[in-house]
C-alpha cells in the first residue's frame, strides 16, 4: 500500500488531521530538575535580548538563549544513562530519524495521581487498561497521562523535605514494557520519566535505567495529553541534532485523525 | 631719611627719591563681556597717553589680575607690544598694590627700570565669581569650598563672629564705617552703590553668612586701576604731579598660631612703617584701609597703630570717617561703595590716596591732605588673609 505524503499534508491543512501541541513553553519560570547541590545542575532556560529594533539592532529583534539538553519539554536519548552508554546510534545526532515519528498510547491515571502524588504505575494497572483498550502494540510510545501539567509550578515540582513527590512508573512495569511490549519509549508530564522519589528504587531511576539500557527513548514535561485518544495518536518528536547530545528540548506534536 | 640711609631699628634702606604719579581708574562696570586683557590694556593706554609716552617708554610692568588666565604678565608683554626690562606678576589680591609699589620702588632706585606701570584689573562675567571661588587656591578647593561654598563671605563671617565675640564689636559699629564710606562715594560717578546708606537699611539687610549681611560685602565688578612709579627727577621731566614714598611694609602668613585671625601681618612690622617714615599715627591726614569686610577695616585701625588690639570698636564709636570727619577713611568710598574690580581693589586705595595728595580727587577732597597710610590685605587661602602690606606716602 502506498501512502501519499501530499495527501497527508493536505489533510493536516484542511484540519482533517488534528495537530495537538504536547509542548510546554520554554520560559524562565518553568521548573527544572533539582539534583543534590554538590552535583552538576541542569541549566534553567534563560533569554538575553540581543536587540529589539533599537540601537543594538535597528530593524530586528532577536535573543540569545541558554538552556540544558534536559530543560523544559525534552527528549532523552539512550546515551543519557549509564546503562545505554555503549549502545550503537544512541545519541540525538545518530538515532535513525525514522524513529522520531511513532504512534503512542496514552494511559490515564489522572485520578490516581490527584489522590496520591507518589502514584506508581504497575503492570496490573496497565493490564487493566489493556483489557479496555486492547494490547499495546510494539513500537509505541507509552505516555503516562497524570494531568500533572495543569498545576501551578510549586505543586508541579512538589518539592518537600525529602525531595520531589511526583508520579511515575514502578520498576517492574518499565522492565515489562521493554521485554513484554517492545515499546518505543516512555513519556510523562512530570519532570523526569521516573517517580520524584525514584532514587529509592532498585535500580534507582528504573525508567531511565531500563528504557535507555535497551535503547529506548524518553519524553518529559509533556502537556495536553488529555486531548489525545488512548490509542491512535502519532507523535512527531525530533530532538535537535546536537553533536553526541544526550537529549534536547523539542517541539512534541501529536497527530490525531 | 636720606637716600641710601638705613632705618636704625630695621636696618632697611629708605625709599628716598621714589615717587608715585598719574593715578588712573578705568570706570567700573557691574558686568562686562570684555576680558581682563582689555581692561588692563585700557589702564596702560590711559597711563601712556596722559604721560605723553609711547608704550615703548614703559620699561617696567607690574600686573595683578584674577581673571587673566590662561595669561600671566608675560603674555601681556606680547599682547600689548611692550618690551620691559623689569616684569612682575603679583597675585596677592588686595595686597598686590602695596607689594607692586614696593617692588617697583626698589627697581627704580637701583636703576633696573625707569618708569614702572603698576596696573591691576579684572573683568566680571556672569559666572566669574563662582569660577574664581572654585579655583582660588588648593586649600580653598580641599578645605573651604566643599563647606557651604559661601566663598570668602563664609570665611570672613567666621572671622567677624569671632572678633565680635572676643572684642564686643557690634553690627552698629560696622554700620558706621559702611555708612561713612558710602557718603564718601556719593560723588564718584561710576560707584556701584549710588545712594546713601542708613543704619536701618544696613541692619535690615539680607543675611549672607551670619553675621555678615549684604552691606558688609563688596559688589564684584569689572574695572582697572593704574599708576606710574619712577624716580623724582623722571616725574619732574614728565611734568607729572607726584607723591613721595616714605615707607612700605609687607608680611605674609603672619601669626600662624592665632586660632582665628584677629590681626594681620601689619602688626609685626608696624613700628618700622612709622619709624622709616619719621611719623607717628596722629600725623597722617587720612587713611585708606583695605575694606573687603568692615571687620578687616576695624582690624587695620588697630594693627596700623591708631589704637591697640581690641580697642577697634571704641575707636570707631569715638571718630567719624567721612572726608570731613575726625578720621577721613576710604575717601572715595572704598570697595564697599565703589565695588571690587577683582585685583584692582588692591590698587584702589593707593590711587585714591595719590589723587588726594596731588589735589585732584574724583570725589570730595580731604582738607590740607599732606600724608596718608594706605593698607592692603588679601588672599584668604584657607581661613585667614595671608597677605598684608602698608605704605606711607606724602605730598611732594
Amino acid at each position, binding site marked *: 500500500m502506498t501512502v501519499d505524503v501530499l495527501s497527508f499534508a493536505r489533510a493536516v491543512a484542511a484540519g482533517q488531521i488534528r495537530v495537538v501541541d504536547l509542548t510546554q513553553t520554554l520560559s524562565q519560570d518553568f521548573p527544572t530538575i533539582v539534583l543534590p547541590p554538590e552535583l552538576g545542575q541542569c541549566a534553567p532556560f534563560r*533569554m538575553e535580548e540581543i536587540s529589539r529594533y533599537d540601537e543594538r539592532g535597528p530593524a530586528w529583534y532577536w535573543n540569545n538563549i541558554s538552556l540544558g539538553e534536559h530543560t523544559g519539554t525534552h527528549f532523552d536519548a539512550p546515551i543519557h544513562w549509564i546503562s545505554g552508554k555503549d549502545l550503537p546510534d544512541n545519541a540525538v545526532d545518530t538515532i535513525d530519524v525514522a524513529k522520531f515519528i511513532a504512534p503512542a498510547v496514552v494511559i490515564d491515571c489522572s485520578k490516581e495521581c490527584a489522590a496520591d502524588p507518589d502514584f506508581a504505575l504497575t503492570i496490573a494497572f496497565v493490564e487493566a487498561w489493556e483489557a479496555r483498550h486492547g494490547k499495546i502494540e510494539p513500537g509505541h510510545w507509552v505516555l503516562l497521562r497524570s494531568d500533572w501539567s495543569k498545576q501551578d509550578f*510549586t505543586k508541579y515540582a512538589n518539592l518537600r523535605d525529602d525531595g520531589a513527590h511526583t508520579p511515575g512508573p514502578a520498576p517492574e512495569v518499565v522492565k515489562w514494557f521493554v521485554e513484554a511490549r517492545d515499546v518505543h519509549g516512555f513519556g510523562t508530564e512530570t519532570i523526569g520519566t521516573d517517580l520524584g522519589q525514584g532514587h529509592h528504587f532498585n535500580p534507582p531511576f528504573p525508567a531511565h535505567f531500563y528504557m535507555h539500557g535497551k535503547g529506548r527513548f524518553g519524553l518529559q514535561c509533556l502537556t495536553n495529553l488529555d486531548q489525545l485518544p488512548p490509542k491512535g495518536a502519532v507523535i512527531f518528536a525530533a530532538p535537535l541534532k546536537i553533536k553526541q547530545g544526550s537529549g534536547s528540548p523539542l517541539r512534541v506534536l501529536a497527530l490525531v485523525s | 631719611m636720606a637716600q641710601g640711609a638705613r632705618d636704625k631699628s630695621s636696618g632697611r634702606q629708605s625709599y628716598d627719591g621714589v615717587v608715585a604719579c598719574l593715578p588712573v581708574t578705568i570706570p567700573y562696570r557691574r558686568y562686562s563681556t570684555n576680558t581682563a586683557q582689555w581692561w588692563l590694556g585700557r589702564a596702560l593706554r590711559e597711563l601712556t597717553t596722559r604721560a605723553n609716552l609711547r608704550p615703548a617708554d614703559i620699561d617696567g610692568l607690574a600686573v595683578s589680575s584674577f581673571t587673566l588666565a590662561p595669561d600671566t604678565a608675560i603674555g601681556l608683554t606680547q599682547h600689548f607690544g611692550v618690551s620691559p626690562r623689569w616684569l612682575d606678576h603679583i597675585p596677592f589680591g588686595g595686597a598686590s598694590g602695596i607689594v607692586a609699589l614696593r617692588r617697583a620702588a626698589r627697581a627704580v632706585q637701583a636703576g633696573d627700570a625707569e618708569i614702572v606701570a603698576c596696573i591691576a584689573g579684572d573683568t566680571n562675567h556672569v559666572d566669574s565669581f563662582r569660577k574664581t571661588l572654585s579655583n582660588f587656591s588648593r586649600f580653598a578647593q580641599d578645605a573651604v569650598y566643599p563647606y557651604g561654598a559661601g566663598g570668602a563671605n*563664609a570665611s570672613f563671617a*567666621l572671622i567677624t563672629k569671632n572678633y565680635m565675640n572676643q572684642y564686643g564689636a557690634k553690627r552698629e559699629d560696622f554700620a558706621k564705617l559702611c555708612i561713612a564710606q558710602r557718603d564718601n562715594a556719593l560723588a564718584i560717578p561710576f560707584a556701584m552703590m549710588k545712594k546713601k546708606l542708613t543704619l536701618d537699611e544696613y541692619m535690615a539687610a*539680607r*543675611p*549672607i*553668612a551670619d553675621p555678615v549681611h549684604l552691606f558688609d560685602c563688596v559688589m564684584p565688578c569689572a574695572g582697572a586701576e593704574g599708576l606710574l612709579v619712577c624716580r623724582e627727577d623722571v616725574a619732574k621731566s614728565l611734568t607729572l604731579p607726584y607723591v613721595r614714598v616714605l615707607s612700605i611694609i609687607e608680611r605674609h602668613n603672619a601669626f600662624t598660631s592665632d586660632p582665628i585671625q584677629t590681626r594681620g601681618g601689619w602688626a609685626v612690622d608696624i613700628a618700622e612703617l612709622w619709624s622709616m617714615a619719621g611719623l607717628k599715627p596722629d600725623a597722617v591726614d587720612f587713611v585708606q584701609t583695605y575694606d573687603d569686610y568692615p571687620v578687616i577695616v576695624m582690624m587695620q585701625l588697630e594693627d596700623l597703630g591708631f589704637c591697640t588690639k581690641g580697642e577697634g570698636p571704641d575707636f570707631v564709636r569715638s571718630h567719624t570717617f567721612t572726608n570731613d570727619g575726625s578720621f577721613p577713611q576710604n575717601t572715595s568710598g572704598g570697595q564697599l561703595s565703589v565695588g571690587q574690580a577683582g585685583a584692582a581693589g588692591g590698587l584702589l586705595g593707593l590711587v585714591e590716596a595719590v589723587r588726594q595728595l596731588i589735589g585732584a580727587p574724583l570725589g570730595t577732597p580731604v582738607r590740607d591732605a599732606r600724608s596718608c597710610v594706605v593698607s592692603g590685605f588679601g588672599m584668604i587661602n*584657607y581661613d585667614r588673609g595671608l597677605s598684608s602690606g602698608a605704605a606711607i606716602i606724602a605730598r611732594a
Partner: protein
Amino acid sequence: MSEPLQRPKRKNPLQRTKHPLSPPGVRSRTAHGLTAAAAEGRFALQVCEDCKTVIYPPRDCCPSCLSARLPFRDVERGGVLVAETAVQVSADPYFRERTPWRVGTVKLDAGPLIVAHLHADALEGYRVRLDLKLDKSGSAVVMALPERDTPNMADDPHLREMTCDPKFRRVLITDGRTPVGQAMAKAFAEAGAAIVFVGIADPWKPVPGFEALRKIGPVEIVPLDLTDSESVSEQAEQNGARIDIIVNTAEHVRSGGIVDRHGLTTVREQIDIRYLGLVRLAQAFGPVLRARGADGANAAAAFVNLVSVHALMNWPAYGSYSAAEAACLSAAQCMRTELRPGGIKVMNVFFGPLETEWFQTVPPPKLAPSALARAVVRGLQQGLEDVFVGDIAEDIRARLAVNPKALERELAS
C-alpha cells in the same frame, strides 16, 4: 536638639522629582587621604613623621619642619567649636538649595584648625567631636558632632545627607533564601526601614525559614531571580521607584579551585549569580536609583555589595568563588562612579568565611550572618564605603597593606 525624623508622607505623584546635585568634589591627591579614611569610618589626619605635628589642610610639606614624610594616621577627634556661621547665600547650586548651612571653625585638641560642617547640636563655644564623612560628591568632608550623642542625632538633615540611614527608607534584599538574606531582612526591619522587599527566586522550590521571614513586619516578598534579566527588570519596573537601598545578598559559595575542578557548570553558575546578577541589578535599578538621589527625606541612598574579602586576594581553597567575587568588586567600583552623579553610595562589605553550610569545613573564626547584617546596617548609618567585617576580613586587609605577595603564599596553604 535634632528634630526626630518623621515618617515621610506619600509623595505627590504629580510633583517633579528634584534632580540630584553634587557639592564641590574636586580635591588634591593628598586630600584624598581623608577620603580613604572617611570611606572606612576612620578619623585620620597627616602627622609629620619627623616632628609629630598634626596637619590640616592636607599638604605636601610640613608647616613646622618642611618634612615630606606626612602619612595619614588616626588622631583624637575632640576639639572646641570656636566660631560658627550659617551660610545663607551660596555660589554653589547644591548648597544654594540647602541654606541655611552651618559651618564653623574647630580647634582640634591635636592641634590644627578645621573648618567643618556642623551638626545641629554642635554649638559655638562647646566641645565637639569630629568625624570624616563622604558627602554626596564622594569626597571627604569634616563634620563636627556634639561631644556626646544627643537624642535623634542621626536625624539631623545635614548628617543624613552624608549617611544612608535605613530609617524610614525602603530596602530591597535581593535574595531572601539564604541565612544571610534572612538575617539582613531582620536587621533592616529593626533599623526602622519602612519596607523591606525580599527577593525570592524559583518560588516552586521550598524556602527554608519562609514563614519567619514573612512574619517580619515591614517585609514584602517579591519574585526576583538574579540569573534572569527579565525577572530583574520586571522587579525594577514595579518597585524601582520606591526602593532607596539595595542589598545584594546573592551568594554562590563552593569550595574548590580552577585547575582541579572538573568542568564549568559550577563556575558558570557563580559568574551568573554573582557577577552577571550584579550587572543585571545595576542596569535595571541603577538609573532609577541615580535619578532619585535627591527625592526627599527617603531619597535613594545606597547599593550594598556583600563581597568576600578574597576578592582582594584569591583563596585557592575557594578559588573559583574568589575569582567571581573579584569580578563583583571591580564591577562595584565601576558602579560607584556611575551612580555618584545621583549621590548614591556603593558600599562594599568585605567578610571572610561565614557560619553557613558551604563554609562548613572551614575552622573558626567564622562570621555569623546576623553579625554581617548588623555591620551592613551600621555601615549605612555611618555612610561608609568600604567595610571590613570580622576577624578574617580585618586580618586579610592588614596583611594586604604590608605585603600582598606574602599573603598570596600564605593563602595557598
